[in-house]
């Protein structure tokens, strides 16, 4: 039977592993290569690495760091951050990354997505959507401008499905790094209705949350703070369980 993937989500800023809260106040955790090595020893299902400064700071993809990370990874690795061209994608796959995650560029340049799907197939391309809840509705959020993206979220999702996307990654901004529990209504209203696998990220705080999520119709469970910071004082601790 296909088991649900429990996925540590590593956020990187300026080559350092950090953890944010509601997408701000990054806390330094340590060296990302070291962290990947530990997750590898724990035989985690999959790893997601997001370089949260790559687009924002205009630096683009750090191929050198990515190569070092990939060398430590004997599990599937997805990478997102600063991918803006077919050439970027080609280099990233060659390095040894299985899936690329794109967010901002898909809204600027949907043509890139159809090209990526044509060349690399739908199963290698993940669309990431940051989500916020405002006045009773869910919206796609633009972290670069701190604003809501235009358009109805369900239509945005459908639009990417029409382009042949094989996986989504939904990151709920207000729950990021809060350990306040996952947003089950978002999962029911959106994720369960999508016929491709989706990773849910945001607020997961305990093994009980995980157990509840196992019963839902989603592909992967992405976990940040719970697997890298411990206790109310947020001590760095790389761990994994499922």
């Amino acid at each position: 039977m296909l088991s649900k993937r429990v996925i540590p989500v590593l956020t990187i800023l300026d080559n350092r592993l950090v953890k944010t809260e509601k997408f701000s106040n990054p806390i330094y955790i340590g060296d990302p290569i070291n962290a990947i090595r530990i997750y590898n020893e724990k035989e985690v299902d999959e790893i997601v690495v997001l370089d949260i400064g790559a687009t924002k700071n205009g630096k683009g993809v750090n191929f050198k760091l990515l190569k070092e990370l990939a060398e430590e990874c004997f599990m599937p690795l997805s990478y997102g951050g600063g991918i803006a061209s077919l050439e970027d994608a080609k280099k990233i796959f060659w390095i040894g990354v299985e899936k690329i995650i794109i967010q901002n560029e898909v809204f600027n340049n949907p043509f890139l997505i159809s090209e990526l799907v044509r060349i690399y197939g739908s199963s290698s391309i993940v669309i990431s959507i940051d989500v916020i809840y405002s006045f009773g509705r869910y919206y796609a959020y633009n972290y670069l401008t701190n604003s809501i993206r235009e358009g109805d979220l369900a239509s945005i999702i459908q639009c990417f499905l029409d382009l042949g996307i094989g996986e989504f990654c939904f990151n709920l901004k207000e729950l990021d790094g809060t350990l306040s529990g996952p947003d089950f209504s978002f999962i029911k209203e959106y994720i369960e209705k999508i016929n491709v696998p989706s990773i849910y990220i945001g607020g997961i705080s305990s093994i009980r949350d995980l157990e509840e999520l196992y019963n839902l119709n989603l592909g992967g469970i992405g976990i940040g703070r719970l697997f890298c910071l411990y206790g109310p004082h947020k001590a760095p601790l790389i761990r994994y369980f499922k």
Partner: protein
Amino acid sequence: MKIYVVDYGTGNVNSVVNMLTWIGIDSVIIQNPKDIIYADKVILPGIGSFDNGMQLLQDGNWIDVLNEFALIKQKYILGICLGMQLMCNFSEEGTKNGLGWIDANVLKFNESEGKIKIPHMGWNNLNIPINSSLFYKQDFDYRYYFVHSYYVELNNRDLITSYVDYGVNFTSSFQCDNIIGVQFHPEKSHKNGMNLFSDFSKL
């Protein structure tokens, strides 16, 4: 003995090499088809769409040398994911002919069959119908990482060395003498992947 990993322009060649290196197996990435004459064992990895893969094999002049390696010299070759699918006749994903080494077609998963999500993505367990050179342990949990939307349907079912239930029972690996294909990614499947590569290197 060195394993030659074909870099034809698609695929995560470095993931394969990283794992081989980790378990102490000598390997080399080849980008020139002529280099294959030195090889005793080849891995054909692959990520991406069927037509793109065939086009790259064609443009890079790989097809003749691969045919010679697999069909005339009959040396061991392991196709991974798209690499496995390219060994077949044709795919519903595209319009090009495959290498045609194995009498099989590549079909798309049918969404309506058993409420499955496509791609088939994640860790799944193999069912082993017969002992084969790569899957021979009794009562062993052969668990591997999959990511694919199309699957191989063999005409000769005797070649199936493992299958997985995902809406349908699909072929997760086949072996026809020296030609081996696996749909999953051993290079991304922790110790089970290492064991498979190690067994392949000893064939």
